[in-house]
């Protein structure tokens, strides 16, 4: 899947997100530890951040991810802000990127308009 780099500040909630295939993800019961070979860096993620990263699979957008985070954190938590902060951090670290969209795909519960050329 091709993907594009995005400015973390301008991430739209309906953009689908993916992670580089090169990330080495070590899953643990309360989070995960990521090795990022390109940067030779290690990231230690708590459970919420690990859920967000797992959902950056090219099929979920920011809204869908926030909904899953809300399910994890509970109804009173500021799930959307938490998820947005994590996504922005991931983008800044190069752990995720905006996925290229196939035309007409349904994400976040809505059908995306197909740009006609």
């Amino acid at each position, binding site marked *: 899947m091709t993907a594009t780099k995005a400015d973390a500040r301008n991430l739209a909630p309906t953009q689908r997100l993916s992670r580089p295939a090169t990330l080495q993800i070590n899953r643990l*019961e309360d989070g995960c530890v990521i090795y990022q070979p390109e940067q030779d860096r290690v990231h230690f993620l708590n459970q919420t951040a690990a859920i967000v990263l797992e959902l950056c699979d090219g099929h979920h957008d920011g809204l869908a991810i926030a909904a899953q985070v809300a399910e994890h954190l509970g109804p009173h938590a500021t799930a959307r802000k938490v998820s947005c902060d994590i996504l922005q951090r991931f983008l800044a670290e190069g752990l995720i990127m905006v996925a290229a969209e196939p035309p007409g795909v349904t994400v976040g519960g809505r059908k995306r308009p197909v740009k006609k050329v």
Partner: protein
Amino acid sequence: MNRTFSILGQQVVVETDQPEVGERLDDIAVRADDALSSDRTLALRVVQADGFLCILHEGRILAQETDLDAAIRMLHLLINQLVLEPQSEALKLHAAAGTWAGRFFMVTGDRGAGKTTLLLKLMLDGAEMHCDETVLLRDGLLQTFPRKFYIKTGTLACLPRVAAVCAAKHAYPGFYGKQLYFADPTDFGLPWRSRAGRPWAVFHLTPAFDQAPLIKPCAKVEMAKQLMMQTLQLTGDLGRHVAQVCRLVASCKCYSLRVGGLDATAALLKKTLA
């Protein structure tokens, strides 16, 4: 004059024509049993040349010292370094390990956290102490590395029986200014065995000697982070090292241990391990 012993199955032979060196070789000789075997023999010689005590390996001078204490300490360091050379795929961690009530455990933490003192206390209470500084991690399994324990002067005040043993030993200049003694369980009439396997628990120590000890479960991600900070080698495949550490923490219990007074901390640790 020579002294032969075995470390992780490797035969270590130290030869010297210097009587004062020969008399000190027992201070650093390793008497740990392990079930490992190897064809490798590590041969070192200590000779005097031009006023220096020279340490030779395969005809090459590895180090030279004018002072006998410094030469013995250097010889000890070189032996450990050379013995570890064939273990390049194993991740080396700064940690101590012991067995209490049949449960194999590992203790990690920054220098000065109290690993050696706490494990010596447990050893005197009946635990088996395998090592106080280095463990090797391979395929998610630990192999204790039988380096002589470094007993620092602060430990002597806490453990009179250890002080009595060290009183008959030669003090060496420490690496951070203070003196240290080389010792091992056999000095206390106890067996010294290396052990390999999956630990039942890993404890991360934080010193707070003026507070009450406290033990609580530690998140596995946090323990992985702490262990990565205690790796003794930063070369090689970092991704593989991370995977090794994660495999270890995934397979055992993880605890944070605030180290308070020695007796109370040891009691808490034993209770957790029981």
